[in-house]
């Protein structure tokens, strides 16, 4: 709940994370409408979203959903710092950079909350879900790896 509230800007609509991203896109001259670039997204991105939905929409996979989320948060801060630096180097507008600098700080907190208060609590209450948490975490790392490989291949082509 604390994590979700932070994603929603702790009650400040200007700090809503989805809003920060939309502002960044608009400032960069990109379309910020929902789904605007759906047809251009690499299939690996859609795969990530589908796996996340699959876990989230099935109660039997709830532990995998938490593991997926925790693995995402735990691998977000340092890359966000690198992305922010890269965007700055490429002269992207401050609004776009801000989305990522916000996540350096926010996801350092979210990582701890997701791992400790969410996954940790679930495993304490339902120890038989332990393997499913790891299944979700590894599933996340796998689809993220596929996306990374795809982008590196395209950039080096």
């Amino acid at each position, binding site marked *: 709940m604390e994590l979700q*509230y932070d994603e929603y800007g702790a009650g400040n609509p200007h700090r809503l994370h989805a809003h920060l991203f939309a502002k960044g896109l608009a400032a960069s001259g990109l379309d910020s409408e929902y789904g605007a670039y759906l047809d251009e997204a690499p299939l690996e991105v859609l795969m990530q979203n589908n796996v996340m939905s699959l876990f989230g929409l099935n109660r039997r996979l709830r532990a995998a959903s938490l593991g997926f989320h925790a693995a995402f948060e735990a691998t977000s801060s340092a890359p966000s710092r690198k992305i922010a630096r890269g965007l700055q180097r490429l002269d992207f507008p401050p609004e776009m950079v801000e989305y990522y600098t916000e996540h350096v700080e926010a996801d350092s907190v979210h990582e701890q909350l997701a791992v400790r208060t969410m996954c940790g609590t679930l495993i304490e209450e339902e120890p038989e879900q332990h393997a499913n948490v790891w299944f979700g975490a590894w599933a996340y790392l796998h689809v993220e790896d596929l996306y990374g490989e795809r982008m590196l291949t395209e950039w080096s082509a």
Partner: protein
Amino acid sequence: MNQQAPDEHPDVILCPDGPMLLRGEHVIEDEDGKEHSTTRPVSAVCRCGASGIKPWCDGTHKTMRKRPGR
């Protein structure tokens, strides 16, 4: 959600080899005497000393060697 005893949600949490989590609103004075207000429901304060956004944690502790005996 069930009502939980207050001590199940501590205000300060020391994460092993990680940051200090602070629940709620606090003002932190850094080494240079500068004050920083928390802006989140929960904030992570750097304990390893290597964060690039001190006083807040930026996850850098994960790239450091663990302290002996841990």
